[in-house]
């Protein structure tokens, strides 16, 4: 029977949030519209107790369109009451979304409730239509919750979120912030942090501060065995700065990437290799000289004009010594060759970054000889036993007070900086120089012990002044007054090499002059031997006494001739003897030949030793041949005794 029901609704809607699900509590008392008929006035408003019914909830938008709909099958209790949770029912087919997907976007929404009280069929009649005004729209209303608030689903806060009363905030999941984040108190991260954007640290304390205080630094890395790692995108190059240093004016320095190509074009690298090349050339020349010395030692010339030629055999000890010299020069050449190889291996292995700065020198703090002595950048100082003063007399080293070093080592203890001064060890440093300066001039102390230097041309400098060279001027000055001149210091190896080459040239010129003099003396002796009786024996006796030469039988008529140079073959045994002499000599000098790559290889690799001996024999033979040919061309009679 279709029972006509009139309903007085008593509806309580409460958002109830559970840990497992969510919904809206719905409670209503179903009132029987049919009054209880009694004589007189009928009794209306009677409850409908213990009655089965179906309830259909529809959440409508402002246009009346169903956004969500569900059905419940239930029974009223003895008080005619139903207690349901909207969201726990059976979603109908026409419901476009599930309850949890309802878009509570702030637009008006209504709750429509239909009831079906029929026992035999589902026939819904309108029950209520209520606009949802408060709780479902909590996001734009005030919520006062004295207990906990748990939200299982996504929570969209479209306004400011404040957590007051000093209450902590805990997030167990990821936190994504799309806009700026400002923290007004300490920020502690107990896990790995990835900052994908630019990070600027602005300390809230006063700028400046004590540079030696740990508390003065806004960025501190502590608590680990390692410091800071900087990884750039792509491969390193000079266009990728790992760290760049700015002040308020400009970039003042940077640590940048370096590639192999950039290393090969690095002026410092080129300069270093030039130095190595010079060393190799010089060592090669030394080896060649040693070979020539062997030729000299293994040959003899007749100087016994007048009484027939006297032939003297080469002195074995001289030959062994000359060969030993060749061995040692070869060993030195091996070291010289090994050094740039090691250097290049090191440079290519450790290629990575370069540090660039407007400052130009490497410096160290050195103690003052007198703590009260004042120094200014560019002052020339003398170093005696590791302490500096403006007195350069008898100084161990002549150095310069640095103005702005790129690297500053040997940092003194805190508070003792006044007892030290920054002294340039290598690089470019401005130096106070009096008078005209040409680029390339050597800078030397003035000798007045006033920290001022003077310039001296390389052509004018004397060997005794070499130790006084401070550096080489890389800039000039035209004025006859004290000027700051840019001076390269710590790079004098090349200069000394140049000076050595010059001295070598001078020595060769002097040797030529000596040979000329010898030839003139021989000619004079020959003339005197012809003119003065007894002169030749006297000379021969003197030569025997001086050279202990050994007379050889005059089997070859050519040997009887005057002024003949005889070249003797150097044997394998002589080479071996020379090697022994070289080893003994080095040992006597305290050199550990086991650490020398040449001798190490000679001792451990027989084939290398054999190869060296053969090459030495060939080299010596070539030198003998060159000397022989030279003698022939110059008209000197020469004979090869092999």
């Amino acid at each position, binding site marked *: 029977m279709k029972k006509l029901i009139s309903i007085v609704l008593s509806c309580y809607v409460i958002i109830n949030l559970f840990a497992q699900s969510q919904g809206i509590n719905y409670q209503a008392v179903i009132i029987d519209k049919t009054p*209880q*008929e*009694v*004589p*007189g*006035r*009928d*009794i209306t408003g*009677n*409850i409908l*107790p213990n009655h089965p019914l179906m309830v259909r909830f529809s959440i409508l938008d402002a246009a009346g369109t169903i956004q969500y709909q569900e059905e419940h099958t239930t029974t009223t209790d003895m008080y005619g009451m139903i207690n349901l949770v909207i969201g726990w029912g059976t979603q109908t087919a026409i419901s476009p979304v599930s309850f949890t997907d309802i878009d509570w976007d702030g637009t008006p929404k209504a709750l429509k409730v239909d009831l079906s009280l029929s026992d035999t069929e589902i026939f819904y009649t309108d029950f209520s239509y209520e606009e949802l005004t408060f709780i479902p729209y909590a996001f734009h209303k005030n919520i006062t919750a004295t207990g906990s608030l748990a939200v299982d689903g996504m929570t969209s806060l479209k306004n400011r979120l404040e957590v007051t009363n000093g209450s902590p905030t805990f997030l167990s999941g990821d936190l994504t912030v799309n806009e700026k984040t400002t923290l007004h108190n300490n920020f502690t991260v107990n896990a790995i942090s990835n900052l994908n954007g630019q990070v600027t640290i602005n300390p809230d304390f006063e700028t400046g501060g004590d540079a030696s205080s740990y508390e003065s630094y806004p960025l501190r890395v502590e608590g680990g065995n390692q410091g800071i790692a900087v990884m750039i995108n792509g491969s390193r190059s000079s266009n990728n700065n790992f760290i760049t240093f700015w002040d308020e004016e400009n970039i003042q320095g940077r640590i940048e990437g370096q590639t192999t190509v950039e290393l090969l074009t690095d002026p410092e690298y080129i300069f270093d290799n030039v130095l190595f090349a010079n060393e190799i050339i010089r060592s090669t020349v030394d080896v060649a000289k040693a070979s020539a010395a062997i030729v000299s030692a293994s040959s003899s010339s007749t100087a016994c004009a007048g009484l027939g030629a006297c032939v003297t055999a080469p002195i074995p000890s001289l030959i062994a010594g000359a060969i030993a010299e060749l061995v040692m020069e070869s060993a030195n050449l091996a070291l010289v060759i090994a050094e740039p190889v090691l250097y290049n291996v090191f440079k290519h292995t450790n290629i990575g970054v370069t540090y660039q700065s407007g400052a130009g020198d490497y410096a160290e703090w050195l103690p003052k000889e007198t703590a009260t002595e004042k120094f200014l950048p560019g002052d020339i100082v003398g170093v005696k036993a590791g302490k500096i003063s403006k007195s350069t007399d008898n100084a161990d080293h002549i150095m310069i007070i640095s103005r702005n070093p790129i690297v500053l080592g040997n940092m003194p203890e805190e508070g003792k900086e006044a007892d030290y001064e920054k002294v340039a060890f290598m690089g470019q440093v401005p130096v106070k120089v009096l008078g005209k300066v040409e680029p390339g001039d050597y800078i030397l102390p003035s000798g007045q012990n006033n920290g001022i230097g003077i310039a001296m041309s390389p052509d004018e400098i004397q060997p005794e002044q070499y130790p006084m060279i401070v550096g080489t001027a890389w800039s000039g000055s035209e004025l006859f007054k004290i000027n700051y001149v840019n001076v390269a210091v710590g790079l004098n190896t090349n200069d000394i090499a140049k000076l050595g080459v010059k001295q070598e040239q001078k020595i060769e010129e002097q040797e030529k002059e000596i040979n000329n003099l010898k030839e003139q003396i021989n000619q004079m002796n020959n003339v005197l031997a012809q003119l003065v009786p007894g002169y030749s024996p006297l000379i021969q006796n003197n030569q025997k006494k001086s050279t202990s030469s050994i007379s050889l039988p005059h089997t070859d008529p050519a040997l009887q001739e005057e002024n003949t140079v005889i070249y003797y073959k150097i044997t394998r045994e002589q080479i071996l003897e020379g090697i022994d002499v070289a080893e003994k000599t080095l040992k006597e000098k305290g050199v550990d030949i086991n650490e020398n790559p040449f001798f190490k290889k000679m001792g451990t690799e027989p084939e290398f030793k054999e190869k060296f001996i053969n090459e030495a024999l060939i080299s010596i033979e070539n030198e003998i041949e060159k000397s022989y040919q030279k003698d022939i061309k110059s008209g000197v009679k020469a004979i090869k005794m092999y």
Partner: protein
Amino acid sequence: MSLFQSPLHISLGVAHDKFGATSSDLELGNYSEWEAAFLGANLGVDYEFLQPRMNPSQHDKFSFSVKGIFGTDYLIKGKQKLNNQVYDLTGVEEFDNPVFFLKGGATFNYYITRSYVAYGQYIFGRSILFGNYNGQEQLRFITHNVNIGFSVSLFYNR
């Protein structure tokens, strides 16, 4: 035989009746209470058995009679209390029409004299429904009257 000596008597009376009733419904929790005052008119017929003779020397002083009454009552005042709400019954459906009664009973008479009679009476009455009612409820009156009275015969001629 005179009319007054006949055993059949006709009575006509006016009554003022007050009725009260209460009801309750445990399931729905309803409580009702009625109080109604009616003004009624009754037309009755009595048949007396063993009526004493008119001779004074007769000593038959007891008689027994049966009584039938047709009456109607009109509500003059009434109220209904429903769950502590009080309503006026005036003009309310069941109380808006006259109530008709059929009553019947028996009377025991004691003739003190021929003119003075003391009696005891019991009358059972029941209301009769007339007309159509829209509702399903029915208003029914059942009355039980026990009367003890004293009657005077005004027209008895000695």
